[in-house]
């Protein structure tokens, strides 16, 4: 999962939720990512966010606090 590809996917989601009312948009993005992204993908997204959120849509950045941190893997 290249960072570019993940950022692209996150931005696509943000683009859709931009048409929601302002107060729902970020929550919509977070909910979508929480529902459909496997923990590894979310972990990569957090890496991008920590490294300056390069290439990420501002709405994804706004949604970040609502995105679930992946748990360490069960043995």
């Amino acid at each position: 999962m290249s960072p570019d590809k993940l950022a692209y996917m996150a931005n696509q989601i943000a683009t859709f939720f931009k048409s929601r009312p302002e107060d729902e948009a970020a929550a919509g993005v977070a909910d979508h990512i929480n529902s459909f992204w496997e923990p590894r993908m979310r972990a990569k997204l957090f890496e991008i966010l920590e490294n300056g959120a390069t290439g990420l849509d501002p709405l994804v950045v706004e949604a970040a606090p609502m995105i679930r941190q992946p748990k360490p893997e069960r043995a």
Partner: protein
Amino acid sequence: MSLIHEIDYGTPASTSEEAVTLTIDGFEVTVPVGTSLMRAAAEAGIQVPKLCATDMVKSFGSCRLCLVEIEGRRGTPASCTTPVAPDMVVHTQTPRLKEIRRGVMELYISDHPLDCLTCAANGDCELQDMAGEVGLRDVRYGYDGANHVKARDNGEANPRYRPKDESNPYFTFDPSKCIVCSRCVRACEEVQGTFALTIEGRGFGSVVAAGQDEAFLASECVSCGACVQACPTATLQEKSVIDNGLPEHARVTTCAYCGVGCSFKAEMRGEELIRMVPYKDGKANRGHSCVKGRFAYGYANHKDRILNPMIREKITDPWREVSWEEALAHTASEFRRIQHQYGRSALGGITSSRCTNEETFIVQKLVRAGFGNNNVDTCARVCHSPTGYGLKTTFGTSAGTQDFDSVEKTDVVILIGANPTDGHPVFASRLKKRLREGAKLIVIDPRRIDLVRSPHIEASYHLPLKPGSNVAILTALAHVVVTEGLFDEAFIRERCDWDEFQDWATFVSDPRNSPEEVEKISGVPAAAIRGAARLYATGGNGAVYYGLGVTEHSQGSTTVMAIANLAMATGNLGRPGVGVNPLRGQNNVQGSCDMGSFPHELPGYRHISDEATRDIFEKLWNVTLDDEPGLRIPNMLDAAVDGSFRGIYIQGEDILQSDPDTKHVAAGLAAMECVVVHDLFLNETANYAHVFLPGSTFLEKDGTFTNAERRINRVRRVMAPKNGYADWEVTQLLANALGCGWNYTHPREIMAEIAATTPSFAGVTYELLEKEGSVQWPCNDKAPTGTPVMHVGGFQRGKGKFVVTEYVATDEKTGPRFPLLLTTGRILTQYNVGAQTRRTANTVWHEEDRLEIHPHDAEQRGIKDGDWVRLASRSGETSLKARITDRVAPGVVYTTFHHPGTQANVITTDFSDWATNCPEYKVTAVQVALSNGPSDWQQEYEEQARQARRIAPAMEAAE
């Protein structure tokens, strides 16, 4: 077991609700108004002799055998064309009728060969039966004189004689046996709707002719076989019956090709399948079929089929045949090693939309309970996953709203991104029948598909949009509905969230969504958009049918929601004749989705994070389920390239050929350490596999398929699995090799587990399916025999949800390097990646993929019809032959993806739907240029595939 004899009532049933009572041969009979005397008699158990009548087509009244006498009426009317009337007294057998019928039969037989003993229809010939029934004992006219039977008369060539036409690979046409009853001509017209057959000449000179009196194969015949089924003699006869003789027993089963899910009688002799005959009680197909379902089953015995398990260390090694025990033990040890070494989430599985519900259920169970993660996905990822997301969001459940019978009550059909005459042929025939009765059609498709204009069918509107502009067009249709006040306010207020509707209405009413603005994006004239919107909103029952031209886009899910919005706004939901109807690609793609094949959902579309749902399965399976969504297919491949995903079990799915961006798929597979392919053939994906587990065909197992109308149909085993095990047994063996300890002895036990855990299947049992034939889910206490139409009286989710659908242009754009847009699709005779149909005689119709290109674009590039051309995108390039046609607009090219040699998916990119990662197959910017033949890549690929398919010769035992 014996053959399944369905009663032929002679004429179609009347749909009238008014009843008439009359007397036939002394019995009182009550039937609907409009019923023929012949049918009324048949319903009373009395079969009137007949030749030209059969209940699949309207009465014709030509054979004069079904005559009856009616008290108080003169003459001897034909019972097939005479409707019932109250208090009629009818006699079907009188001295006068007997004499007339014998006379008629004498005339028929005087121009028919008497080779009954060596005739392929011997024992299955209605002419023979009628001769017996009327007591024919003599033919006073003899067999000399003018005839169609003999090639030469008295040494002279007989100009009336026509030789047998054997051009069609599946059936023969022998005019010398024809009695000109016209059943074939009428079946082609009324049942199939192709109008390929006609009667040429007049009187005694009348003969059946295909096309412009051509060979069947050269004519426009689509080889559906309706004529063969209708023929009362051996004139049109299956070659399989000519070769093998007649079948002696049959079982009803379900076709394993497209999502229509036709019911067939598999007619057998011993373990040999003699022919497939569509089952009239099949509620999806009502006795009809297409060329694939009826004829293209030969792959089951094809020499390429692999019957023994095989393993190899590296994908560059030749395969080594091993025992089942060794193959399974090896797989289990590899899977355990991988999880030990790389973690629990390094494994995954892909369920098959070709396999049964029971099989997909246990593959996802193996992943969730056995592997302990949720890395399970299915081919719906690349076709209808946006339908799942879009319809669940708007209506509350992920399925089409109607049954196929619903089309009989539809007044206006919108067909978007679907080509049913090729992709869903039996539904297309039912649709065409309704269109001939006067329903209107709106086609939204970049190509001029056959339904835009074909014999006796013409779309009121064809909106030939630029690929990728679906959302803009649908929102523009909604703009017209809202701004012109054509919406159904009462319906919306009662069933939908009114506030959300108002937000949505404000959005669609914005001038940027007007047809005039959208014309600039889509290339569709504004007047056509306005006309189509008005027709759909005001033309009576409006139904939308759509296919992958909707879903396989960056905005696939948005488009599905835009369709749902439009249907809700016009009140076109919740009753027969309306609805939102995804045409599903594969036989069991609906079922595989229902069965929890998606990584975020347990069976019945319940999110994995839902504790109550997990609890049901955890208690039953005695495991702890992971509460996080798993990887989807494209994510698995990405993770494989990254190194965190190392092994996969793929049942009945060829991701290398069917998924986009072939090179990326190949890289992902090549990065894995244990790829297990469970399939009939060494498919393209198997080139990268380490373990091959042979699969079984739908003829070799029991189970159920769920078609596009949510109909759960039985699949019945008619022969033993040639590979030794049905697919569910193989999965169970693998699960047990991993220590799961399962002990299913029959798929009905798996269905019982599905019913026990999944509310929408709660009432489904094999006993119920036996009794009802089929049921449509939801099937539970509230709907004990299933649900033909969904959302009656209210939506599954409560209030219908309007969603704002902003158009976002795809990033896949044309430019100077790639100035054309490629879109992809199917053809009638081939199916998906072609693994099955390429191994049948269907290849006579389509032996290779062709690139359709508009004459203008071809001219600019110096391309002539049949030239080799290079097709290139930013992902890759391939070569194929061009077909020049104005079915595609200038700027658009089209190809099918049935042949691995073409590998159309080398061209497609990794862009995908924003919500579901469904790939954007339908839009790729490309360039086309003349070429000399296959590309280097194609040659390398072919060589790699050849190497990868080597099977080491078995070791000789030492003496």
